C-alpha cells in the first residue's frame, strides 16, 4: 500500500514538531526517517500510524484519507522502540492479541489462531518461547515477538520506531539483515525511524533526512550521501569537513587559493563541504591545491586518517586515505603537504544550518 504524507504539521504547546512535511512512499518500499533527536521523525511516524493527530495536512493510504478511519481500523503494524509487549501475557498470547480482539464475525476460530500464531512465531524464530513472559526474553527476542505481534493483524503498512535502538551492536546487525529479508519476502510497505545513519543506509530503499520538523532531502542512500541537498544533510550523513570560504566569480576560495567550483552562487561568504575520503594529499604542489601541515596520523583498520592544519588556519581538515595508498610513501606528523578536494560542495553561508538538536519532545521517547 502506498502512503502519502501531505503538508503535515504538528504542534506540541507552541513547539513545532512537524513543519509542513510531505513524503510519498511507494508500495513495497522500505523507507527510513533519519534525523537527530528532536527532528520530528518519531512524531511523523506516530502521525502516520494515527497515534498523534496532525495539526494540519493529511496522510493518505492508497489515496484514501487515513484520518477518516479510527486507529484500530487502519491496520497498521507498529513496533515500538521499547516493544510495548504486554508484560502480563505470554509470548503466544501477545501475538494472538490482535486476532482475539477482532469482532466475532471476523475473528478466526481458536484453532486457526493457534496455527497462525505458531506460524508467526516460527517466522520470527522464537517458536520455542511461546509460553514465556516478555521479561524472560533477551532484547533481540522481544524485538522479534513485537514484530510477530504487529504482523498478526496482516497490516497494510509496517511502522518501526527505532527498531534496533535498544540492542547491542552484534544483534543489531543480524536483526537488520534479517528484517530486510523479511521485508522483501512479505512485500509490505515499511517505514522505520532511526538516528543511526549507517542503519538507514544499509537497510532502506530510500532515506528521508529530517531536521527541525522538516524533511531536508529524500532519496536513495547513495543519492543522499553523494549529493546532499543541504549543509545539514552533508554534515549529518557521514563525515564532512566544513570549510568557511569566500565565493567570488563562481569559484570558492580558501584564503587566496581558488580550490573548487561554485558556479551559479552569488558572491559572498560560503561554506564548503568535503568528505575526508574525497581529499588527495601530495607532497608536491598541484593545481588548486592548498598547503597544509600533517598534525597527526592515525591508522584505523583499513584506512589511514590524517589530520591537517592549514596556515593561516581556518581549522583542521580530516583526510582518510586507503591504507594501501598511504603505505607506499607514508606521511609523517609535521610534514608539509598539499591537499586538494576531488569533489566538494559549496553552499552560501546563509544556508548553513548546522545540525543543532531541538529539544526532544515527549513523543520521541
Amino acid at each position, binding site marked *: 500500500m502506498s502512503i502519502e504524507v501531505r503538508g503535515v504539521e504538528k504542534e506540541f504547546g507552541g513547539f513545532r514538531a512537524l513543519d509542513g512535511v510531505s513524503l510519498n512512499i511507494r508500495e513495497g518500499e522500505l523507507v527510513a526517517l533519519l534525523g537527530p533527536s528532536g527532528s520530528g521523525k518519531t512524531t511523523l511516524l506516530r502521525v502516520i500510524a494515527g497515534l498523534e493527530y496532525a495539526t494540519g495536512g493529511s496522510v493518505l493510504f492508497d489515496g484514501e484519507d487515513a484520518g477518516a478511519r479510527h486507529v*484500530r481500523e487502519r491496520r497498521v503494524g507498529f513496533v515500538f522502540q521499547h516493544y*510495548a509487549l504486554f*508484560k502480563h501475557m505470554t509470548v503466544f498470547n501477545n501475538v494472538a492479541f*490482535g486476532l482475539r480482539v*477482532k469482532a466475532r464475525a471476523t475473528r478466526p476460530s481458536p484453532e486457526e489462531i493457534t496455527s497462525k500464531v505458531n506460524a508467526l512465531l516460527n517466522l520470527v524464530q522464537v517458536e520455542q518461547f511461546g509460553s514465556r513472559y516478555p521479561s524472560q526474553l533477551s532484547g533481540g527476542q522481544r524485538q522479534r515477538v513485537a514484530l510477530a*505481534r*504487529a504482523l498478526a*493483524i496482516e497490516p497494510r503498512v509496517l511502522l518501526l520506531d527505532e527498531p534496533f535502538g535498544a540492542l547491542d551492536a552484534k544483534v543489531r546487525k543480524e536483526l537488520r539483515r534479517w528484517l530486510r529479508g523479511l521485508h522483501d519476502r512479505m512485500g509490505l510497505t515499511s517505514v522505520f525511524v532511526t538516528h543511526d545513519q549507517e542503519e538507514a543506509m544499509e537497510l532502506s530503499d530510500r532515506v528521508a533526512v529530517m531536521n527541525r520538523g522538516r524533511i531536508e532531502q529524500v532519496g536513495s542512500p547513495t543519492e543522499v550521501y553523494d549529493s546532499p541537498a543541504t549543509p545539514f544533510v552533508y554534515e549529518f550523513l557521514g563525515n564532512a569537513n566544513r570549510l568557511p570560504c569566500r565565493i567570488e566569480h563562481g569559484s570558492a576560495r580558501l584564503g587566496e587559493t581558488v580550490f573548487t567550483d561554485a558556479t551559479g552562487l552569488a558572491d559572498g561568504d560560503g561554506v564548503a563541504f568535503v568528505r575526508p575520503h574525497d581529499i588527495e594529499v601530495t607532497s608536491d604542489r598541484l593545481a588548486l591545491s592548498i598547503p597544509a601541515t600533517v598534525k597527526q596520523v592515525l591508522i584505523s583498520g583499513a584506512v589511514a586518517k590524517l589530520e591537517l592544519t592549514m596556515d593561516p588556519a581556518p581549522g583542521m581538515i580530516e583526510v582518510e586515505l586507503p591504507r594501501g595508498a598511504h603505505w607506499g610513501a607514508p606521511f609523517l606528523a609535521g610534514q608539509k603537504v598539499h591537499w586538494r578536494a576531488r569533489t566538494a560542495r559549496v553552499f552560501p553561508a546563509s544556508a548553513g544550518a548546522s545540525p543543532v538538536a531541538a529539544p526532544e519532545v515527549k513523543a520521541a521517547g
Partner: protein
Amino acid sequence: MGQATPRLLRPPPPTTEPFAVKWALIGTAVLFMLLFLVMPLAAVLSEAFSRGIGTYWAAITDPYTLKSVRLTLLVAAISVPLNVAFGMTAAWAIAKFEFVGKSVLITLIDLPFSVSPVIAGLIYVLMFGAQGWIGPWLIDHDIRIVFAVPGLIVATTFVTFPFVAREMIPLMQDQGTDEEEAAILLGASGWQTFWRVTLPNAKWALLYGVLLCNARAMGEFGAVAVVSGHVRGVTTTMPLQIEMLYNEYKFAASFAVASLLALLAVVTLVVKATLEWRFGEELAAVHRAPGGKV
C-alpha cells in the same frame, strides 16, 4: 586456592554494614514493632479473655454484637465496590489521559484524607439531617439517611474514597501508555484495552487498594459516629459497639468485640499474603518489565 581459604577469613561483602550497625537497626525496628503493634494486639486479646472464655463467648454472641458485625460487613460490602468502581475509573482517566481539570480531580480525590472524619460525618448531617439542605424534602418522602444505615454507607464511602485510586494512579502513570497504544493499533476497542491490558497490569495495585479500603471501611469510627446516632442494634457498627460497651464499663465484652475486629484485619492480611504467594511468579514476571522499564 579459593576453596582452601576458610570462610571466616573472607572479607565482608563491600555493601554490608558493620555488625553493630546492622543489629542496632534491626533491633530498633523489632522493638518498635513490639511496642506499637504486637503489645497493643496482645493487650486486646488478654483483656478480651480476662473474664474467661465463657464471658468472651457470651459477648460475641450477644444479639446486638452480632447485629453490629452484620452491619459492618454490609457497610463494607457496599462502600468498597463503590470505591473500586470510582477509584478504577478515576485512576484510568488520570493516568492515561490528558484533560483540563486533571489536577483539580487529583486534589479532590485526596480531600477525604485531609478532612477530619468527624467533619466528613457532619457534612452529611448538615446535608441530609432534619435541619439540613435537603433533609426536609427527604423527611417528606419518608427517606431516612442520617441516623440510619444509608448514612453509614455514605459516610464510609466518603472516608474510604481515596484508597483505590491512590494505590493505582502512581503505578498506572509509571507504566505509561505504550501498551495501550499497542492494543489500539492491534484493533482493540477502548473497553477491550482496559480489561485486557490496563487492568491486568494494575491488578496488584487494585488489590492492595481494595484491601486497604476494606480495612478502613470496617474500622471507620469518626465519620460513622456522627451520622449513626447510636441506635443500638440498628446503626451501631463494630467500632461504635466497642465504644458503647466500653463506656458502659463492660471492658471484657468491649475487648472481645475489638478482638473480632482485629481478627478481620488479620484475615485481610492473610488473604493478601496468600494471593501474593499463589501468583508470586506471575507478579515477578510482570515486575521485571521488558526494556528495563517498569
